[in-house]
Each structure stands twice: as structure tokens, then as C-alpha cells.
């Protein structure tokens, strides 16, 4: 049936269905919606799409999204420049920003995973080593996902950085807030016990 649509519509449906999470049906629905949308609104969308391709790039220092050579975080002089938090993906930066962390970041853009054929050269590790060697870094916080590959990548980074005089830490693993202890599995509990900390009541 799609063959009987005009060519521009077929092209739009095909282009939309390449987007993650959008199948042919959803692509069709969006395309029909756009056909009916006023020209100005579509123009805005087109301008926004062009904007991200023309202006958005990765920060030369940390690998987060930026408009210039440096992202807003790296160019913010009010941040603690002696601490780097290492994350897997740029969107993880936004998640960590919700916490009280006010240091710098380093985005790996992936994890080491033999199953996916991703070795150490596939993650942005050399830049991290360079920053630790050249900069006045006191602590590197590893905030990779608590998955097997995330942990293996964190351990690999820790091994790689141990030659430098920096403190290497990993964010705590264990029980999420709001859950019931009785439903926690043994591996999560084990990690929670390993990462237990002293209570300072003063």
C-alpha cells in the first residue's frame, strides 16, 4: 500500500522508521501528522534537526555534547576541577547532574564488551589517561552501569590508572532506595554489604 503514496511521503516514512523505537506503523502515523501540521511548525522541526547536525558536537575534553570546542561543564570555572566522574554515555551526565556532584566528567561512549566486539580502543580511554596525567586530578570516580560489562570496564580503567597518584573510586552498588530488603537478590545484598559504611552521628 505504501507504494501508492507520493514519493516524498514514502521517503519520510522510510527515514522516520530508521529512528530507534519507531516501527513502520509509527513512522506512518508521524508522517501523516506532519502532512497536516502547519508549515511553520514543520519549519521549526526542520531547523532544529539541522541545528543539531550543524552545531552539536562532542566536547574535546570530556566527550559530552557541546556547541563549541568545550561543553558548558568543562568551561564552568566554578566546578571542582580535581575530580572526574567517568560515565558510559552522554545522557548519564544529566543523571549524575541531578545529584550534588559538581566536578568534571569523562564520557566513554560505550563499554568494553567482547560480545559486541568492543575492545579498549572503542572507548574514549586515551583521553582520560591524558587528562589524569596532564591535569591536576585528585580523584577519578567510576560511574559505569552496574552491569557485568560496566563493572569489567570500570576495573579495566582502574588498572590502567593505578600508575598515577590519583584516588580511584567507584560509585556504591547495592540496594536501591525505597525497596524491601526481603526481595533483594543475594548478589545485590553481597555488594551492599561490601560497600557498607560507618555511621557518623556527630
Amino acid at each position: 500500500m505504501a507504494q501508492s503514496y507520493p514519493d516524498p511521503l514514502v521517503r519520510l516514512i522510510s527515514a522516520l522508521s530508521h529512528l530507534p523505537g519507531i516501527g513502520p506503523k509509527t513512522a506512518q502515523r508521524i508522517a501523516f501528522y506532519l502532512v497536516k501540521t502547519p508549515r511553520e511548525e514543520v519549519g521549526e522541526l526542520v531547523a532544529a534537526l539541522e541545528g543539531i547536525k550543524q552545531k552539536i558536537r562532542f566536547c574535546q575534553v570530556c566527550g559530552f555534547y557541546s556547541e563549541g570546542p568545550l561543553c558548558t561543564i568543562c568551561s564552568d570555572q566554578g566546578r571542582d576541577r580535581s575530580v572526574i566522574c567517568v560515565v558510559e554515555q552522554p545522557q548519564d551526565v544529566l543523571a549524575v547532574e541531578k545529584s550534588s556532584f559538581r566536578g568534571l566528567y569523562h564520557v566513554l561512549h560505550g563499554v568494553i564488551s567482547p560480545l559486541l566486539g568492543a575492545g579498549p580502543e572503542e572507548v574514549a580511554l586515551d583521553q582520560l589517561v591524558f587528562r589524569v596525567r596532564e591535569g591536576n586530578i585528585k580523584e577519578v570516580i567510576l560511574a559505569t552501569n552496574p552491569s557485568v560489562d560496566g563493572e569489567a570496564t570500570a576495573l579495566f580503567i582502574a588498572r590502567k590508572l593505578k600508575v598515577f597518584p590519583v584516588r580511584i573510586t567507584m560509585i556504591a552498588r547495592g540496594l536501591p532506595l525505597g525497596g524491601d530488603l526481603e526481595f533483594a537478590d543475594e548478589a545485590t545484598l553481597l555488594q551492599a554489604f561490601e560497600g557498607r559504611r560507618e555511621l557518623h552521628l556527630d
Partner: protein
Amino acid sequence: MGLLPLTRDRCRYWKDEGVLLGSFPFGETDRIVTLFTRQRGKIRVIAKGARKVGNRFGISLDFFSYSSFFLYSGKGLPMLIQASLQESYRSLVNSPRRWGAGHYLLYLVDRCFEMGEPCPRIAEEIKSGWRICLEREDKDIEAMLIKFLLDLIFYMGFTPSFSNCIACQKAVPSDSAFWDNRRGGVLCAECGPGEMLLPPYVLPILRQLQLLPLTTAATTLSLSASQRSFLGQFLTKYLEHHIGERIISWDHFLAKIKAIEVS
């Protein structure tokens, strides 16, 4: 008129156990996961909310976990309703080589099996393989991987002949044995010329490996590094020929891991 009893195949809910072969994000918080289960083999299911912190699946839906699953099949992909951990081999991550070997077992199973081909023995062997990776030395792990490849060939129904010539049925001495992947086995000195000549140690090792269980094969056989490397590549090529898919040999897989070890 009473309802017909639901058979195992018709039941929309079912319990199974197995391991995770791979996953990718789907939608906002879901994941599509590929499992290898005892009853249904390789299956792709949707795990709703699996990307959320504190989700109901937790570690049971990660690599190196042997878990029990409760699933529902409706329209489209089956849905994973519940998962609980039975055994965790997560500490494999502490050593790059063991972590790689653990992944290699999953890679082989994922590559060799089509969707919905059950093989409970292989599900069991993955567990045993992980245990060996955790407890034994590096050379034992490599011997285990060779035995795992051999078992994979056996359970997939491609067992080659290691004793008699596949052309004339004569017993083949190990010092003058030729090999033909296409016909699936050894050839004698009369039928074999033109095919690959096997090094004399290959057949005795393979015959012995066929008889040993995975758990003891690793320690019983003492193989040199070059023998392990040859056997691994030899069996990989054989498997590759029969399933028609490219398979990365352990040596190549290890090259990536070695980059992690040395740096």
C-alpha cells in the same frame, strides 16, 4: 462443554531457566533480551522496565547469571514477568581472561543456535563452563573451551567420525589421518590425499575428549599452548562449515582481551 486442558505448548504462561545471551534497550525503560533457556532454547523476550533502577529483574537478567524465568506469550514477543537468580558467576569480571572466556561460551551458543532450538545439556554446560572459569587455571579454561566446542558440535548433530575413514570405513591411524570438513570426519591415507593432513596428536586427543565430561576434561588432558590453539581453530572451522556462519575463534577473541590484560 469443558475446556480442553492446556498443553505445555499452548499454555500462555510458562516457567523456564537459563542464561542471558544479549540485550538491547527498547522504548523508554524496557529491554529486549535474548535468553538461552532449557525448554525453548534461544528466545527473544521483552523485559518491561528492565532499565529502571531497582527493577524487578536485577542481577538475574545480567551476564553470568543462571536464573529461573516466568514468562507469558501473547501477541508478539513473549514477556518476561519474573526472574530470580539461581547461581551467579559475576566474579568472572575480576579477571579479563576469565571474563572473556565466560563471554565466549555465550558467543558460541548465540552464534550456533537458531531461535527455539532447545538443548538443556548446553544450558547446563554453560554453567559448568563458568564454574571452571572461576575455579581453574588459564590452561584448563582453554581446554574446557575446546571440549565445549566439541559438545556443541555433538548436540547440534554434526558429530564427525574420529576413528573410521568416512569414505571406506577402515580404521584410521592417527599418524596418517586426513580431514574433510564437508564430509565430516577423517580419511585414511588412501582416500585422503588432497585433504588436510592432521598432526598426529589431534585424533587421540579428540577421541579422549569425546568420552570425558566437561568438568573433568579440563584437568585430565594436558595440552600444550600450540595444541590448544590448533584444536580450537580446527573445531571452529568445522563448526563454521556446518552451520554456515562465521565464528570467531578463541584466539581471535582473546586478542581483544589481551589488549586489556597488557595495558
